[in-house]
């Protein structure tokens, strides 16, 4: 994602003295954080992606390059302004049901295919070699990760009956980790802002909500709606039950926002630091050179930090989900 931006801005940057004032940094950053109908690689080079639109007249499927530069195709065009800026709208300015394979969706597919092939490949290795052969290399590393989630996260937090939940926790951990790491790679297979998109984190959190609440024993619901407290706290006005009931939803909500905000913030900071190079371009050669050095150094530092954050956020999401499940099963 950064490389894409760098390439775009480099092209601009060659003409920096003339065009630097046209650079709108916040627009640039928000364009990256959002989604797009094509996968931009460099100026003039973008992978067109299929658009799938379900409108009143039926389903339309076409490649996104038909809509380039504000063109209209089958009555659809990309809105330039308004609530649906950057989205496909019909002639009346309304949104069809848009299930296009956008950049984020393609990234999602890449993550899913990667995850499935790695884990199913591992499973095949274990089927072939049985348990008497110790794995090495990549298999050994993945085993350490899976075993860590199984024993140190799921078993530790949930306790009895953890086996039912550990596949979910492993899936969610590896999914978030893979998405985070791919998001840090600036060139094609990575670079989308997947875990920094609220739709993705929301889905993860809803799945956590289901895992926490739909398999909980009766005692869990009793502790929410009729907790073990003095009667005046729950009888005429249900003070504590209300708080507890809100808590049921705030837990997954906090998971959603935490992951989304952390990853998005990381992307914003790195993009902003990169933009410093081009913002200072019009301030003269000396200023630009020194600020470029500062920007590159900070970018390296931030990327290292983001690498750490990628692991931490995946771990935090998983261990908090495991803890919430454990609390629900505590009774």
């Amino acid at each position, binding site marked *: 994602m950064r490389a894409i931006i760098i390439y775009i801005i480099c092209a601009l940057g060659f003409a920096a003295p003339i065009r630097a004032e046209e650079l709108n940094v916040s627009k640039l950053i*928000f364009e990256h*954080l*959002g*989604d797009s109908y094509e996968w931009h690689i460099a100026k003039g080079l973008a992978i067109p992606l299929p658009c799938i639109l379900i409108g009143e007249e039926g389903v339309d499927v076409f490649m996104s390059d038909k809509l380039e530069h504000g063109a209209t195709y089958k009555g659809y065009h990309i809105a330039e302004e308004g609530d649906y*800026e*950057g*989205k496909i709208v019909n002639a009346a300015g309304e949104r069809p*049901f*848009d*299930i*296009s*394979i*956008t950049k*984020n*969706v393609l990234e*999602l*597919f890449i993550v*899913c295919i990667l*995850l*499935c092939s790695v*884990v*199913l490949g*591992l*499973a095949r290795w*274990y*089927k072939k070699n*049985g*348990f*008497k052969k*110790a794995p090495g290399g990549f298999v050994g590393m993945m*085993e350490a990760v*899976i*075993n860590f989630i*199984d024993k140190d996260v799921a078993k530790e937090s949930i306790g009895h009956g953890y*086996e039912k939940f*550990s*596949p*979910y926790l*492993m*899936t969610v951990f590896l*999914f978030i980790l893979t998405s985070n790491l791919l998001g840090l790679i600036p060139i094609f297979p990575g670079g989308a802002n997947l875990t920094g*998109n*609220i*739709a*993705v984190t*929301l*889905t*993860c959190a809803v*799945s956590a909500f289901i895992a926490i609440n739909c398999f909980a024993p009766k005692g869990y619901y009793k502790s929410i709606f009729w907790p073990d407290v003095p009667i005046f706290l729950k009888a005429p006005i249900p003070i504590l039950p209300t708080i507890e009931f809100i808590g049921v939803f705030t837990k997954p909500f906090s998971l959603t926002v935490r992951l*989304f905000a952390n990853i*998005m913030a990381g992307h914003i900071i790195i993009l902003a630091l990169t933009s410093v190079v081009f913002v200072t371009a019009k301030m003269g050669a000396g200023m630009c050179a020194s600020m470029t050095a500062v920007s590159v150094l900070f970018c390296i530092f931030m990327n290292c930090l983001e690498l750490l954050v990628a692991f931490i956020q995946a771990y935090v999401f998983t261990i908090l989900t495991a803890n919430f499940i454990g609390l629900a099963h505590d009774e």
Partner: protein
Amino acid sequence: MNPLIPDPGLLFWMVLSFGVVFFLLAKFGFPVITKAINERKEFIEMSLLSAKEANERLASIQAEGEKLLADAKAKQKDIIADAMQEKQRIVQAAQEEAQTSADQMIEEARQSIQAEKERALQDVRKEVASLALDIAEKVIGERMKDDATQRKTIEQLIDKL
């Protein structure tokens, strides 16, 4: 665009693909792996346990062997001590026997020497008596009237000698 509003299209694909991935991995992926890991863990634990048992058995066998060796050494010592005692007893007995038989032989020899000596003395005496008689006969030149009386006299003389 507002980053806080989830995009329905992405939401749709996310739910679909996350569901499919979760189903696939939870059905065919992770259980196989965790099962293999747990089996290996059990296998390692079992191996460690049996190794420990084998070690303990080895140690007990070693101790037993050492005990046997010590017993054998003690027994050997006893036997040697017994043998030494026996030897001394036998030697002593043999010495005693030899002593007594030697004493007996000496005694016998002394007795026979004594007897021999006495017999020789008697012989000598007889010879001397008859010699003396012969000499006396020749000296005197006549035959003594009473041989027996003369002989008695001579014997008395010899005794006085």
